[in-house]
C-alpha cells in the first residue's frame, strides 16, 4: 500500500483529480447526472403528479415515437426550418461581413446596429414581430404599398413557419457575421496582393482565397447554426401560445417535448423524444464533419 502511494504517477493523478474536483462536481451534478437520468426516464413510464412512480417499459417509449403523427409533423417542420434557415443565415452573415470589412464610412456604427438584434432577448423580438406580422401590421402595409400580395402571417398554417424563419434569419445572422468578420481580418493581406499581381479580379479573389480560407469558420457556423435551429423553441412557443398552431404548422420537436413533459406530464416519453432529437443532431453533425473533411483532403 505504502509503495503504491509512493508511486509518482498515482500521486500526480490524485492531485490532478483534486484540482479538477470542483469542475467535475459541478459538471457531474448539472450535466452528466441529468443526462443519465434522462436516459433512465426514457425506459420508464413515469407518474409524477401525486407521488413519484416508475415502471420499466422496455423500448415502448421509443416505439411510440414512430407511430406518433405529431412527432413526424414536428420533425418535418424542424428539418424544413433547418434546411432553409441555416444556409440563408450563413450566406447573409458572410455578405454582411464582407460589406463591413470594406473601407466604408461609419463602419463601426453599422457593425453595432447590425449586431443589435442578436443581443436582444428572443422573447422580446418575437413579441415585436407578432405586431409586425399582424394582418394590419407593418409588413402587410409595406407589401400592400408595393402592390404585393399580403398574408395572414400568424394565422395561416402555410406561412406561419416561414414568418418564424424570416425573423430568425434576421436575428441570428449578425452573430455569425461577427465571427466571419474576425476570420476575414485574419486572412493575411499579402495573399490578396499576390493574387492581384497574378491578375485576379475581386471575384476571383473571393472564390479562390476568401472562401477556402474561411472554410473552418464556415464549418463552425454551420454546426452551431444547425444545433441552434434544431432546438427552436421559444419563438414558436410565443408565436402559437404554446400550442404549435395554427394546425401544427409551428410545432417543433422541442415544443413537442415541452408539451409532453409539462402539459401531459408524460416524462418518460418526453425523455425518449429528447434523446431522439439528440441522436438526429449528432448524426447531422457527423455527416457535416465528414463532408468538410473530404473537401479538405482534396
Amino acid at each position, binding site marked *: 500500500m505504502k509503495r503504491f502511494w509512493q508511486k509518482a504517477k498515482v500521486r500526480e493523478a490524485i492531485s490532478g483529480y483534486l484540482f479538477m474536483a470542483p469542475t467535475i462536481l459541478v459538471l457531474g451534478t448539472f450535466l452528466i447526472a441529468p443526462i443519465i437520468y434522462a436516459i433512465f426516464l426514457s425506459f420508464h413510464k413515469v407518474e409524477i*403528479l401525486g407521488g413519484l412512480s416508475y415502471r420499466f417499459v422496455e423500448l415502448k417509449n421509443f416505439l411510440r415515437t414512430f*407511430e406518433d403523427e405529431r412527432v413526424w409533423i414536428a420533425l418535418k417542420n424542424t428539418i424544413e426550418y433547418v434546411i432553409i434557415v441555416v444556409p440563408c443565415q450563413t450566406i447573409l452573415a458572410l455578405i454582411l461581413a464582407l460589406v463591413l470589412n470594406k473601407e466604408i464610412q461609419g463602419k463601426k456604427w453599422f457593425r453595432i446596429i447590425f449586431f443589435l438584434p442578436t443581443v436582444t432577448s428572443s422573447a422580446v423580438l418575437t413579441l415585436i414581430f407578432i405586431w409586425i406580422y399582424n394582418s394590419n401590421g407593418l409588413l402587410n402595409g409595406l407589401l400592400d404599398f408595393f402592390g404585393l400580395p399580403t398574408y395572414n402571417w400568424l*394565422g395561416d*398554417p402555410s406561412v406561419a413557419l416561414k414568418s418564424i424563419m424570416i425573423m430568425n434569419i434576421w436575428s441570428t445572422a449578425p452573430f455569425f457575421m461577427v465571427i466571419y468578420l474576425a476570420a476575414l481580418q485574419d486572412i493575411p493581406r499579402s495573399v490578396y496582393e499576390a493574387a492581384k499581381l497574378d491578375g485576379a479580379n475581386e471575384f476571383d479573389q473571393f472564390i479562390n482565397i476568401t472562401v477556402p480560407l474561411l472554410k473552418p469558420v464556415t464549418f463552425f457556423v454551420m454546426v452551431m447554426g444547425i444545433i441552434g435551429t434544431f432546438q427552436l423553441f421559444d419563438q414558436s412557443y410565443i408565436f402559437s401560445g404554446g400550442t404549435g398552431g395554427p*394546425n401544427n404548422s409551428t410545432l417543433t420537436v422541442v415544443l413537442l417535448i415541452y408539451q409532453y413533459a409539462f402539459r401531459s406530464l408524460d416524462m418518460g416519453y418526453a425523455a425518449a423524444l429528447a434523446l431522439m432529437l439528440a441522436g438526429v443532431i449528432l448524426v447531422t453533425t457527423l455527416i457535416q464533419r465528414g463532408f468538410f473533411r473530404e473537401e479538405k483532403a482534396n
Partner: protein
Amino acid sequence: MKQILSRCLILLSLILFLTGCSRSIASDISTVTLSGWQSSPEEKQLLEQVLREFEESHPGIKVKFEVITDQYMDVIKTRLIGDAAPDVFYVDALDAPLLMSHGVLEPLDDYITEDLDLDDFAPHLSEAFQSDGKTYGLPKDFTTLALFYNKKYFDQLSISNPPQTWEELEDYAKKLTRDTTHNGRVDRYGLGMTPELSRHYFMIKAFGGELVDQKGEAVFATRQSLSGLTPLMDMYRQNHSAALASDVGASSGSEMFGQGKAAMVIEGSYAIPYLQQTFPKIEFATAEVPSIGNHKGSMVYTVAYVMNKQAKNKEAAWELISYLTGKEGMKAWANGGLAIPARKSVISELGYEQNPLYTPFIAGADYATIWQEDEKLPIFMTHFDNQFLSALLGEQSLKSAMKKAQQTANKEIKASNY
C-alpha cells in the same frame, strides 16, 4: 485562530436568534399562499381588495397572493410535482378531473359546515368539482356564452331585434358584412368567431352529437356533430360573412368586436367590462345565443378555489376558501362584474338579473353545456382545434377533418396506455 472562532460564534448566535424570532412570529400568524390568473389589472386590484378585507376580519391569517400570468395550469402542475404549489389556487372545471384523480387536492367535505349553504351554488357548477362523492373545490364564479351585437350597425340596417335562431344569424351576418372603405376588401364581418372546441361543443350537442362515448373514445365525427358545425363552415367559407380574429389583425373575438371589425361575436361575460373599459365608444347589447336546430344552447365555464393536499396550514387555508366562496366574500368579488358569482343569492342581491347586459348570461346557465369531460379532454381539444381550423381554411372538407381529428385523438390515447 481565536478571532475566527469568536466570529463564528457570534454568527452562529445571530442565526439562532434570527430564526428563533421568525418562529415565534409564525406561531401567531399563519400565512396562506394563493395563486390565480388575471385577465386584467383591475381583476388583480379587486381581488387584493377582497383579500385585505379578509385579513382584517381574520387577524391571525396573512394571505400571500401570486398571479401566474401565462400557462397557468402548466405552472401549477409543475409546482404540485415539486411540492411548491400554493395552499389555495384556482382550478378551471376543464382541469379539475386530472387533479382530482391524481389525489393532489384536499377533499373539503370535512370542513364544509351547514352555514356555508352549499345549495346556494348552481348544482352543475359544484358538480364539476366533485368526484366519487367528494367535493374538492367550491366554485367562485362562472360565465356562459352569449351573443354580443353592435347596436349601431344593427340600426343602420334597421334590424331591431337580435337573431333568435342560427338561420337568422346567418342571414343578418351576410347583411352586416361590409366593405366600408370601398377598397375591394371586407373590413367589417357579420360574425367574429373563435374556432375552438371549447366554444362550439354545444353546437355538436345540438343535433345529438357527442364528444366521447362510454368507452372514452372520441366520437365527434358523426353526422350529427357535423350538422352542428356546418353553419359555421358555411358562413366562413361560402358567405364570407364570418372571420377569425387573426384575419383582421385582432388577438381575440372581443377585441375584433370592440374595433368594429365584427358586428356580432359570441363571448363570455368577461367581455362586458373589457369592452366598456377599452372601447368606451362602442354601443353594444347582449342576447342569448341563437337557437340551433330548435335547441337553445350555450357553454358554461366555471372556476373553483381548491386546497392543495400539501397545504401547511389547512385550517387557515379553509378559512380563506370559505370566506372567498361565502356570501360576503363573493359579493365583494363579484361587484366588479368580471364574472357572474356562483351563488344564486349573490346574483340576485347584486341585481344581475335586472341588468340587461347580464340577463342573457344568467338565462344561458339553465341550458348551457359545462366545459368539462374526463382527463382526456385536452387531447380531444388539441386535435379538434387543429383539424377544424384546417377545414375552415379550406385545406380539407369538414367531414374528413373531423374524421382525422377523431382518429388521431384516439390513436394518441391508445398509444399513451402502456
